[in-house]
């Protein structure tokens, strides 16, 4: 389906050369993009910071995003969480995180019993093909999440103006 991906697996012998190339590219990046080079937390670290180390369960959250995108500059995302949204049992926060943008955070939405329905939409930027995570915090302190893989052909965020 995606012929470009085969290259990665079929070139074991080129591994050392590739490592050198990656090293060179990385050091160049350090010099040319001082701000972007500040190591961003990984997706898992960002999730842990959000949950405070609490376990994350799969389910209850529906992350709706097109799987294949032409343009990463404005991607419609909808997050839907199964919840009765009563004062005793509702969604407190819904957060979105990404894997490969320059910054892991996308947005944090604060909801309450007056929301009526735990559903939010927004439009986001994606720098490259990557995984997105939606995570919801409920009133009982539990965390629920859902992931989506997205393929982006035209990236956002890091393009230069010239």
């Amino acid at each position, binding site marked *: 389906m995606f012929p470009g991906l085969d290259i990665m697996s079929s070139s074991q012998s080129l591994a050392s050369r590739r490592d050198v190339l990656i090293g060179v590219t990385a050091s160049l990046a350090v010099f040319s*993009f*001082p*701000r*972007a080079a500040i190591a961003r937390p990984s997706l898992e670290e960002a999730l842990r910071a959000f949950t405070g180390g609490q376990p994350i369960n799969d389910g209850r959250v529906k992350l709706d995003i097109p799987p294949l995108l032409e343009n990463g*500059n*404005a*991607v419609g995302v909808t997050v839907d969480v199964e919840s009765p949204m009563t004062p005793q049992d509702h969604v407190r926060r819904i957060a979105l995180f*990404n894997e490969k*943008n*320059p*910054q892991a*955070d*996308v*947005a*944090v*939405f*604060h*909801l*309450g019993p*007056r*929301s*009526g*329905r735990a*559903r*939010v*939409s*927004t*439009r*986001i*930027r*994606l720098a490259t093909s990557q995984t997105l995570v939606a995570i919801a915090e409920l009133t009982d302190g539990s965390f629920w999440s859902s992931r989506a893989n997205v393929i982006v052909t035209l990236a*956002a*965020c*890091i*393009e*230069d*103006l*010239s």
Partner: protein
Amino acid sequence: MTARALINAPKTARKGEVIEIRAMIAHKMETGYRQGPNGQMISRDIISHFVCTYGGVEIFSADLYPAISANPFVSFSTIATESGTIGFAWTDDRGETQTATAEITVS
């Protein structure tokens, strides 16, 4: 600087009904990760916080990051409880706030 804000909320609703509110504001949401033609980084300038109030009480808020698209759009729900004003406030990195309002009649 006042930017154009677009609000889409029902003008009338039945009491207890869940209504959807959509809000957008014109803003470039400069990420701080782009280089200008002179090779200098373009400094970050984004709307970082959005709040919606209903009858003066906060019902929804959002923390936004550079990964939100230009002209940030947010859609969410609330329960129509009373006739009154729904207020919207967008705050940028420099702490400047822009507001908009919508009236709703609840029967």
